């Protein structure tokens, strides 16, 4: 799909003129974002450009001071991450958002636990641990995180890379509308990063759109359909990786080059 084609479609998720201030710091300064069906939208930008704040606003973790968010064209107001999840938006946060002392299974199903069927689930509200463990193991296997020997291991006993893998698996498993990932490969090794990238592509092939924040240009140019360049708290422009080189993207991102006419936000 070309730039034209995309703009004719209705965005799945759209942010308009979001503003978020932290005291004297303006982390988002009328930031926009559009995510179209079935695409991988990469978001790049300097450290502190406000990328995480933007996607936190989209996932309900931060309530913007101004601006609006539209899901399938309808305005939504997320007051908590639960709202966003309820609407089908799953997020891998930069901080991972795991409870260290709980098991991998517990963490994966946090807030959407499965109950046993029948009396025990309905009245005794008993969890279906076996089922949850099964699903969790499947999801991790898909990601190739075979080395986790014990699905009931506490998350705090995993290495940083393994933790990130669990967080990614969780989002990929439960997202029904949009998956957002904030630097999902930052702590990962070469092999593990590759697996996550493959997973991202696979999620897209299931038709689900993805927002991917990354500082890794080769990764971004490899998987992204469009690249949203964030600068100074707002969108500088959106480019297609086929039309621009990495150098251009980096130049725009750092301000060395003005965003190309016509496609600037």
């Amino acid at each position, binding site marked *: 799909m070309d730039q034209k084609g995309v703009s004719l479609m209705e965005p799945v998720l759209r942010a308009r003129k979001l503003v978020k201030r932290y005291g004297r710091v303006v982390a988002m300064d009328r930031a926009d974002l559009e995510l179209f069906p079935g695409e991988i939208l990469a978001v790049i930008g300097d450290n502190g450009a406000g990328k995480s704040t933007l996607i936190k606003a989209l996932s309900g973790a931060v309530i913007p001071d101004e601006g609006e968010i539209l899901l399938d064209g309808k305005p939504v107001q997320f007051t908590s991450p639960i709202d966003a999840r309820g609407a089908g938006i799953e997020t891998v946060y930069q*901080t991972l958002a795991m*409870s*260290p002392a709980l098991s991998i299974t517990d963490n994966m199903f946090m807030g959407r636990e499965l*109950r046993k069927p029948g009396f025990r689930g309905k009245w005794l*509200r008993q*969890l279906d641990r076996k089922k949850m463990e099964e699903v969790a193991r499947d999801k991790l296997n898909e990601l190739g995180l075979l080395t986790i020997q014990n699905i009931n291991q506490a998350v705090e006993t995993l290495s940083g890379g393994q933790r990130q893998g669990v967080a990614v698996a969780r989002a990929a498993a439960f997202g029904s509308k949009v998956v957002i990932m904030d630097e999902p490969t930052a702590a990962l090794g070469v092999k593990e990063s*590759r697996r996550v990238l493959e997973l991202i592509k696979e999620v897209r092939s299931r038709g689900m759109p993805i927002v991917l924040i990354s500082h890794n240009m080769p990764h971004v*140019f490899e998987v992204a359909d469009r690249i949203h360049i964030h600068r100074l708290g707002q969108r500088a422009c959106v480019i297609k990786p086929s039309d621009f080189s990495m150098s251009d993207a980096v130049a725009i991102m750092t301000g060395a080059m003005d965003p190309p006419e016509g496609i600037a936000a």
Partner: protein
Amino acid sequence: MTSDTKTANGPADYESALTSGPQAVAAFDDHRHGWGQKIQHTLHQTPSLVPLIVLVLSVIVFGLLLGTKFFSPFALTLILQQVQIVGIVAAAQSVVILTAGIDLSVGAIMVLSSVVMGQFTFRYGLPAELAIGAGLICGTLCGYLNGFLVAFVKLPPFIVTLGMWQIVLATNFLYSANETIRSQDIAEHAPLLQFFGSKVNVGGAIFTYGVIFMVVLVLVLAYALRQTAWGRHVYAVGDDPEAAKLSGVQVKKVLISVYMLSGLICAFAGWAMIGRIGSVSPTTGQLANIESITAVVIGGISLFGGRGSVLGTLFGALIVGVFTLGLRLLGADAQWTYLLIGLLIIAAVAVDQWIRKVSV
């Protein structure tokens, strides 16, 4: 590396080896096996075993020192009876501490609830059932206030419950006019208030309903914390509230529910207290907060939240009970007992820490 790439491209060339390599990542072999390891592993998996071991050891030691005086059915059921109130309150305290909170107002809520039960029956002439209901509601409401201030106003639990402690206690004195309702009157007009004091024969041993209630309560809580979503959320909130929120836990709701539950359990403790001492006295429960926290900590629950088991708390309370009775039967006088209990607290936690360390 000089050509400028304009097209989206595949994996970098150096990644080609990835497909051919073994797919297992660094998995280390466990070189050490055997008995010791297994024990360590079990201890690590079941943290409440540590206080259980301490408990059994202390029972054995006092049994050897005191003989039948200690190993009599009377003395052993006595420990249970002496521990029941602290045990119930400590169960409430456990749940709060699991969320990385603390509830200093447990004793005050307990006594206010029992006073409400008593005064509603005797001052206003309500049927005992209604009065007890009012007492339970009163405790839950106090808990709700704590929870509201902690969850919504985001004040530190220590300070909220410190303030509530004073407020509830003063309310208790003002409302009760410092009057005790006598046991004889209660037995005559509203025996239901003393329900938890009734005795029952379970397989030869005599228990009060209060003791049974304590055990059942702990088991139910252990089930709820371990087997339900709510329980998992309690742990998650205590572990890292920010992460819990981001991963879809309704942190505020969980906190409110925990403090309300704590209030409700304390109200039950107030009812059990009437059963235990017979009368309704506004001066009871002054040490319940310190004693319950002691039981919780000896039971191995971390004051930083998220780690430990409510079963441990029960053992913790029993350990203190065993030591207190044992030392008193050995003839230590009150101040020496306090001194030794102080040492016990430190020693119990040190042993716990040590076992955890060798069994990482």
